[in-house]
C-alpha cells in the first residue's frame, strides 16, 4: 500500500500512509489512538474505500470496494467488535459469510468444514455452539476460523489482545506466529510494545495518519525508539508548568472501584488539582478513563477513597449536589451524558440550573426567560445554526460542543472535568474549545483534562499524569515530560 489517503467529513484520518507486508511474517502496526492504524487496515480490508493511493497484492494492483472483494483477494480482518450473529451457531455464522455461491449449503456441511479448519490451524472451536454462549476468547477464535474459511491468507487483527487475559493473549499470539510460519501473513494492530518484541517480525509505526517507521525489523528497534516515534512532535509543544499554583480545589485520595463485566476497575487513584491549573491525564482509551469520570461525577459508586471538593468530601453526594458545589463536566460523548437530543437548545442550556430555581419557582417554568437566556448564549458563543427552539439533535458536533461549553462554563464553575473535549471536532472548533477552557482556568477554575490525544494533553496541561489499567502510573510537571517517560507509561511498563 502506498500513498493512501482517507478523509471523513473533511477531516483527514490518513494522509500518504504506506504499508508493506511480506508473506510468512507477523507485522505489528503501532501508534496512538487516532493515529490511523485501524483506518489503514480497514482500507486494506475493503471496509473503507481510499480517497487516493495505490494498493497491490503480489505485485498486482487491486482496488477493493467491499469486504467481500477483499475476502476474495485473500484478505480477512478480525475487528475489535466481532462480526458474528449472536443468535446463530458458529457453523451458521460461517454459512452466512460464505454466501449463496458457495458449495457449502447446509449448517451440517458448514460445521464439518469449521471442525476441519479448526483442527488444521490448531484453534479449538465448537461449530455447534451458539455465539451468545461463547466467551470473548472463544468468539475471537470463531471469528478467526470464519475469516480463514472465507479464504484469508492475510489475516489482519485489530487490537486482538485488548479483550483477553494475559494467558489467552499469549496463546493467540503464538497462533499468529505459527500461522505465519505456514506461509500466511499476519498483521497485528497493537499498543503494547511487549507483544511486538516477543511475537512480531517487523513493526510499522503510525502517527497522525502517516507512516513514520515503515516496516523495520523488530530486532533493530528499542522500546525507547517506539515510544519516541509514537509520541513524536506532540512533545514539541512546550509544556508550561504553573509558576504559582492556587489552593487545592479537588483532591482525590485512594479512589478504588471494582471491575464489572464491561468496566475496568479503578485502583488507588490519587491526585490534587489546584485553582488555575490544568492537570492532563493521558492514556490509551479503555484504561479506566470513562470509569474515573463516572465516579467523579457520581454516576458510579466507589468502593474506597475520598473525593474532596474545596475540603468537603463529596463522594457520597448525588450528581446534582456535586454540581451545586461547583463540579462541571464535558463528557466524551456529548449526546450520551451531556445534551439531550430531543430537547430544544434552550431546554438543554437551562437543564442544569432549573433544579436550583433559576427559571421559576418549584412549580411553574418560565419558558420565555429560558428562551431569552438561550438567545444570549447563542450570541456569546457564536453557536451557528441554532435558535432557542430547535432541537439539539440538529446541531453539528462543534456547535453542540459550544452549547455544552456555554452551559458548563457558566456561573459557579470551580472544577471542570473535560473528557476528550475536542473529539470529532474540526481544527477551528477544537481551537475554540481549547481557548474556552484556557480562559476559564485563567479566571480561577481548575480543570482535569482526560484525553487520549497526547497532543491535546501536552498543549493544554500544566501537569501531566498517565493512566494505565485503572491506575495513575506517573505524574510530572509539563516541562519535565520526555517521550521515553510518557511512551513507556502509555505502553504499560511503569
Amino acid at each position, binding site marked *: 500500500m502506498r500513498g493512501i489517503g482517507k478523509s471523513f467529513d473533511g477531516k483527514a484520518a490518513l494522509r500518504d500512509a504506506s504499508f508493506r507486508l511480506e508473506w510468512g511474517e507477523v507485522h505489528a502496526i503501532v501508534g496512538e489512538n487516532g493515529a490511523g492504524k485501524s483506518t489503514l487496515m480497514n482500507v486494506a480490508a475493503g471496509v473503507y474505500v481510499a480517497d487516493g493511493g495505490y494498493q497491490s497484492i503480489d505485485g498486482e494492483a487491486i482496488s477493493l470496494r467491499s469486504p467481500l472483494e477483499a475476502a476474495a483477494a485473500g484478505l480477512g480482518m478480525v475487528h475489535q467488535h466481532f462480526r458474528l450473529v449472536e443468535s446463530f451457531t458458529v457453523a451458521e455464522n460461517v454459512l452466512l459469510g460464505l454466501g449463496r455461491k458457495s458449495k457449502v449449503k447446509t449448517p451440517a456441511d458448514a460445521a464439518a468444514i469449521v471442525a476441519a479448519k479448526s483442527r488444521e490451524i490448531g484453534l479449538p472451536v465448537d461449530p455447534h455452539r451458539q455465539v451468545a454462549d461463547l466467551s470473548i476468547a472463544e468468539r475471537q477464535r470463531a471469528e478467526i476460523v470464519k475469516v480463514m474459511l472465507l479464504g484469508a491468507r492475510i489475516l489482519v487483527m485489530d487490537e486482538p489482545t485488548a479483550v483477553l487475559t494475559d494467558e489467552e493473549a499469549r496463546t493467540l499470539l503464538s497462533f499468529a506466529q505459527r500461522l505465519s510460519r505456514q506461509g500466511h501473513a499476519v498483521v497485528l494492530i497493537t499498543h503494547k510494545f511487549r507483544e511486538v518484541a516477543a511475537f512480531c517480525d517487523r513493526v510499522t509505526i503510525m502517527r497522525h495518519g502517516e507512516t513514520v517507521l515503515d516496516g523495520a525489523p523488530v530486532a533493530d528497534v528499542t522500546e525507547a525508539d517506539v515510544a519516541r516515534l509514537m509520541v513524536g512532535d506532540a512533545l514539541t509543544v512546550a509544556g508550561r508548568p504553573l509558576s504559582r499554583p492556587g489552593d487545592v480545589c479537588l483532591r482525590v485520595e485512594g479512589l478504588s472501584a471494582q471491575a464489572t463485566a464491561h468496566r475496568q476497575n479503578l485502583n488507588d487513584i490519587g491526585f490534587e488539582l489546584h485553582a488555575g491549573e490544568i492537570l492532563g491525564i493521558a492514556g490509551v482509551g479503555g484504561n479506566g478513563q470513562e470509569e474515573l469520570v463516572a465516579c467523579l*461525577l457520581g*454516576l458510579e459508586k466507589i468502593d474506597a477513597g475520598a473525593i474532596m471538593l474545596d475540603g468537603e468530601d463529596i463522594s457520597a453526594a*448525588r*450528581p*446534582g*449536589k*456535586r*454540581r*451545586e458545589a461547583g463540579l462541571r*463536566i464535558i*463528557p466524551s460523548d456529548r*449526546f*450520551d*451524558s*451531556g*445534551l*439531550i*437530543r*430531543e*430537547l430544544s437548545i434552550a*431546554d438543554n442550556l437551562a*437543564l*442544569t440550573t*432549573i*433544579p436550583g430555581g433559576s427559571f*421559576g419557582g*418549584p*412549580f*411553574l*417554568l418560565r*419558558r420565555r426567560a429560558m428562551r431569552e437566556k438561550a438567545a444570549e448564549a447563542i450570541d456569546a458563543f457564536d453557536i451557528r445554526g441554532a435558535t432557542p427552539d430547535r*432541537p439539539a439533535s*440538529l446541531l453539528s458536533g462543534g456547535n453542540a460542543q459550544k452549547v455544552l461549553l456555554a452551559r458548563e462554563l457558566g456561573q459557579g464553575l470551580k472544577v471542570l472535568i473535560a473528557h476528550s473535549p475536542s473529539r470529532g471536532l474540526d481544527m477551528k472548533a477544537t481551537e475554540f474549545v481549547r481557548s474556552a477552557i484556557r480562559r476559564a482556568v485563567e479566571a480561577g477554575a481548575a480543570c482535569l483534562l482526560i484525553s487520549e490525544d497526547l497532543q491535546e494533553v501536552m498543549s493544554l496541561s500544566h501537569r501531566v499524569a498517565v493512566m494505565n489499567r485503572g491506575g495513575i502510573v506517573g505524574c510530572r510537571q509539563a516541562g519535565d515530560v520526555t517521550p521515553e517517560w510518557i511512551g513507556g507509561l502509555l505502553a504499560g511498563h511503569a
Partner: protein
Amino acid sequence: MLDTAFLVRRQNPGFLLTSLSYAGGLLVGLTVSAMLLVHAGVPASALVDEFLIATFLTSDGLSQTATAALPLVLVGLASAVAMRVRFWNIGVEGQLWLGAIASTWVALNGIGPEALRLPTMFVLAALAGAAWIAISLFLKLRWGVNEVISTLLLGSVAFLLVQHLLFGVWRDPANSFPVTATFPEASWFSILGWGQLHTGIFLVAGIALSIWFVMEHSRAGFYADAVGFNAKAALATGLPVLRTAVGLVLLSGALSGVAGMMIVAGTEHRLNQSVGNGYLFSAIVIAYLARAKPLWVIVVSFALGAVFTAGNVLKVFYSISEAMIVLMQGTVLMSILMAQFFSTYSLKRPN
C-alpha cells in the same frame, strides 16, 4: 429488484408530513376494519349508518360516546404519563380493579359522611391504584424486575382478588349472583340529564387539564421529558431522576385507580366481573396514538368511545363478537403506527 435499502431518519419531519401520514394510517385502518366487518356479515350500507350517523349525529349516540370516553381518558392518561418516563405500565387493568375495589368498599360500608362519600371514594381509589403499581415499581428498583411482566401479571392477581370478593363477602344477597348490591345513591355521580352522562365529566376534565398543564408548563413536566428522553444525561446534569420517575409512575397507578371509581360510581353503580375488561388494550392504544400528549389523549379517547358505542350497536343488531371490536382497534393502531414509522424514516437506496 430492491436488494438493499437504508432507513434514514428524517431530520425534522414537518407538520404537514406528520399529519398526512397520520391521516393516511387512519384511513387504511378504517378501510381494513370496514372490510373485516363486511366480511363478518354487516351490510356495507349499514356501516356508514351505524358508525357515522348513529354514533356522532344522534343525541343518544353522542351522549353514550361521551360517557364511554370518561374512563378511557383516565386510563389513556395513566398509560401516557408512565410512557413519558419510559415505564411501560401494562397493568392498567390491575390498578383499575384495585381502584374499583377501594371505592366499592367505601360505597358499601358507607365510610365517612354522605356529603364526602364521592371524594372519599376518589381518594381511596387513587391510593389503591398507586399502591398496586408501587409493587411493580419496587420490584423494578430493587431487583430490576421488568415492569412489563410484573404489571401485566399483577393485573391477573387483581382480577382474582375481585372474584374472591364477588364470590365471597360481596356477593349480592338478593339473588346470589357474583355482583355486589347496588350502591346507595350517595355514591353515584349524579346524572346530568343527557343520556347516561354524569357529573364525573367535570372530574375527568379537571384531571386532564391539570395533567396537561403540569406536563407542558411545570418543572416536573420538564424533568419528565428529560428523564424519558435520556435518563443518563438527566442524572449527569443533576436532575432528580428517581423522584421524577417514581412520582409519574405512582400518578399513573392513581389515574387507573380513579378510572375504576369512575366506572363503578358513574355507570354501573355496583362492582361486577366485567367493569375493567378491555381497558388495558384501550389505554395503550390511546397513549400511543396520542403520542403521550395529554390533550390528544382526550381527542383519541372520544374516538375510541365512539368505536365502543358503534361496537355495542353492531353486537346487538348484527351479532358481531367482542373480539371483532378489539380486532378493529388493533387494526387501526397498527396502521397508524406504521404510517408514523414512515413519517419518521425515509427509505433510501444505496447509490
